[in-house]
């Protein structure tokens, strides 16, 4: 018995297909895609007329806080948030407690994901032991246990010599190195972007060069070692220029950008809004424009949320005391559809590509495409659905979004993982 999705507009960025078709899912795989598939009596049927049928979204940068900080989020709530937002796979960062620096932690996450997760969970392991930047983590063992990438996210690897050796190992095992590009000596305890608004609000600024200095260093190290470098959450115009130039030279570098850096500037911090406090910080208008441009011309490959849950109690403090980070899984698709696709800045196909096909390719996953025999990971999207962001009803345990109250148009209305419906606002008919 299968699941038949009838009459939807099937969009597959991997092949460029955009046409009305029926999709049949069976045994966790895509069994057929055709202009018309007969229900045959044994399939459950979803009426997808006026809906988009796209590959399930892949978020290559989330914080599930599990193990260690499950008051903020855990694998069950984080993946529930993911499927609410149309994501069928998330790669989780290793800054957990303990960090993902040992195969037992990788296995813990895999096991929890299997038993309580609503979507696929792909652990990213640390580059260094304890994420302390001092000794190499057991990279080959971590790779063998199923880690999909390496990162000390939250911090860059300060020691360039150590990072160079880590990159050699990463190349050997075929994993990308994901860097949180930040020179802590340049950030200097800053709480927001250094610029006009940090001056006005009297907050310590994180200068753009804090990110760019590390991006520049890492690019030459990647070039030197032949490792695949992936720059996490690019936030400045200068970083975009560095990555663009490196790609032109043929360096193995990819990059991601978050919806909040694409859509907001440091002005959002005004009034000391701690739900607009994240690292890297929201930058200036010129940076934001450069990020959109970088996404358009392919300098920036993927869109990732950097979903970083913190509780209201943790965020309702003095701005300097508040932790960095915002949640993003439940708003990403809709804010991008509303603010980038609707105004015509980016095509629907491109946004979906950067949310599925591209991140899947960077992490070497089978998903992110609608093809025969591909995993049955899909999202159904209603482009007309209007809704208002209300953090109180998030599936995530946390509510720290900078998009609260935004009126959006376009929403994931069904998320299917491995052929199973994990989130639905639709009626499913068991066909007679």
């Amino acid at each position, binding site marked *: 018995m299968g699941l038949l999705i009838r009459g939807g507009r099937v969009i597959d960025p991997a092949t460029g297909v955009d046409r009305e078709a029926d999709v049949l899912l069976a045994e966790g795989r895509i069994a057929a895609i055709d202009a018309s598939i007969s229900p045959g009596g044994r399939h459950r049927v979803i009426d997808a007329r006026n809906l988009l049928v796209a590959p399930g979204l892949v978020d290559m940068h989330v914080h599930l806080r599990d193990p260690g900080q499950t008051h903020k989020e855990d694998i069950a709530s984080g993946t529930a948030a993911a499927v609410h937002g149309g994501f069928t796979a998330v790669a989780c960062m290793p800054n957990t407690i303990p960090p993902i620096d040992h195969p037992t932690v990788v296995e813990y996450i895999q096991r929890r994901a299997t038993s309580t997760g609503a979507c696929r969970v792909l652990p990213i392991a640390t580059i260094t032991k304890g994420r302390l930047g001092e000794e190499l983590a057991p990279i080959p063992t971590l790779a063998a246990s199923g880690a999909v990438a390496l990162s000390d996210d939250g911090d860059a690897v300060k020691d360039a010599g150590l990072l160079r050796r880590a990159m050699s190992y990463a190349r050997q095992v075929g994993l990308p190195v994901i860097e949180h590009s930040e020179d802590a000596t340049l950030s200097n305890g800053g709480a927001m972007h*250094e*610029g*006009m608004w*940090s*001056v*006005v*609000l*009297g*907050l*310590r*600024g994180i*200068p*753009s060069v804090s990110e760019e200095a590390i991006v520049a260093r890492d690019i030459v190290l990647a070039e030197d070692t032949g490792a695949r470098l992936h720059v996490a959450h690019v936030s400045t115009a200068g970083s975009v220029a560095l990555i663009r130039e490196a790609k032109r030279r043929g360096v193995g570098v990819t990059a991601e950008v978050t919806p909040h850096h694409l859509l907001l500037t440091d002005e959002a911090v005004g*009034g*000391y809004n701690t739900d607009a406090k994240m690292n890297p910080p929201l930058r*200036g208008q*010129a940076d934001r424009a450069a990020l959109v441009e970088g996404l358009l011309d392919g300098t920036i490959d993927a869109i990732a949320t950097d979903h970083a849950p913190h509780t209201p109690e943790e965020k*309702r*403090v*003095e*701005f*300097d*005391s508040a932790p960095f980070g915002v949640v993003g899984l439940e708003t990403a698709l809709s804010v991008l559809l509303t603010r980038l696709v609707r105004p015509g800045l980016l095509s629907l196909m491109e946004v979906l590509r950067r949310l599925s096909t591209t991140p899947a390719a960077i992490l070497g996953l089978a998903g992110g495409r609608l093809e025969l025999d591909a995993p049955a990971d899909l999202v159904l999207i209603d482009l007309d659905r209007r809704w208002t962001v209300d953090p109180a009803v998030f599936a995530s345990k946390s509510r720290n979004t900078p998009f609260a109250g935004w009126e959006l148009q376009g929403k994931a209305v069904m998320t299917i993982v491995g052929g199973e419906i994990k989130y639905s606002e639709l009626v499913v008919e068991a066909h007679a």
Partner: protein
Amino acid sequence: MSRHLLGLRDISVTQIQHLLDLAQSYADGERPAGILAGRTLMTLFYEPSTRTEISFELAAKRAGAEVVRCDVDRSSVKKGESFVDTVQTLEALGADAIVIRHPMAGAPTLASQLVRCAVINAGDGMHEHPTQGLLDLLTVRQRKERIAGLKVALVGDVLHSRVARSAIWGFTKLGATVTLVGPPTLLLPGPREEGRGKKEEGRIPSPLPSSFFPFPSSALSMTSSLEEGLSGADVVMALRMQLERQQHGYVPSLAEYARHYGVTARTLAYARPDALLLHPGPMNLGVEITADAAYGPRSAIQTQVANGVAVRLAVLLWALDTDERREPPRSLRELGAERGNEGTRERETIRERPLSVIASGSEAPDTESVIASVAKQSSVTPEIASALRASQ
């Protein structure tokens, strides 16, 4: 109805003028006796202070308010009580106004979002120190009889200074131009698009676009040349140099700083002959300012201190919305009765809050006790006026 004073950026030119006029009337010797009887002011200082805290207390007492000092070092803050909980506790205990000094920018703003009583910023991180800004404006207005058209130079650690931030907003809103003077590491970060790598020699573009000011973009400029910055200045304000700036590598040494940016009787000669010298205090003599300048003929530093009480009195009345009701003068008995009623109304407002903690024993004072406290307060001589006369 209560109002918050969080910064001079947030309030209008009209409101600033009104506060200065009100403060001037107290500086001139008008007695505020009894006007805040039955009201409770609480001070919550997370950083040490002499001038600000004492002048707030004096101002409140002169107007007949009850003043309670929340001693952070001996309060539940030491047990780890959060800022948010502390502020809500003070309101529940019956504060009509909370005066907050905090090392983190935005703490008073956060407080103002949580309580209904007035929140007054007494200095928050590197953000603002609005009552200092007002007393600077008042001092200059007294001596120069105007603000518009004046050239004001702020010298020193502008980057970390809340006093400088409030002065920038206050002076430019009232039509003065402001020049920031200091070593490049202690000025404000310039706009990146235009500034990077191609700065004109000597001239640093203003970090704030002209849209921020009610006056042309020339309202704010920066320079690292003391001579250039002071030249033609009507007002020179030396900013306090934090001693730890050297350790963090902002300046090579305090001696080096003093050599190039110290305001002395000699360097003050770059300014106009009738230039006024200000300093927010406390001073590091020999670092940002020397004794020959600080105690010299152009110094208005003692006047600044003396104006502190008048300004804070004006701010308290404004924040508690009693300033319009000063005129015409009424009998003490009438006054007391009215305050008593108002006190009752205030408590009712608090009772509506979802947080159901209500101050006990905070009934409105009876008329007799108000009169008694007023009588006591009115015997206090207004030193403000005499101090002012002495310094002029």
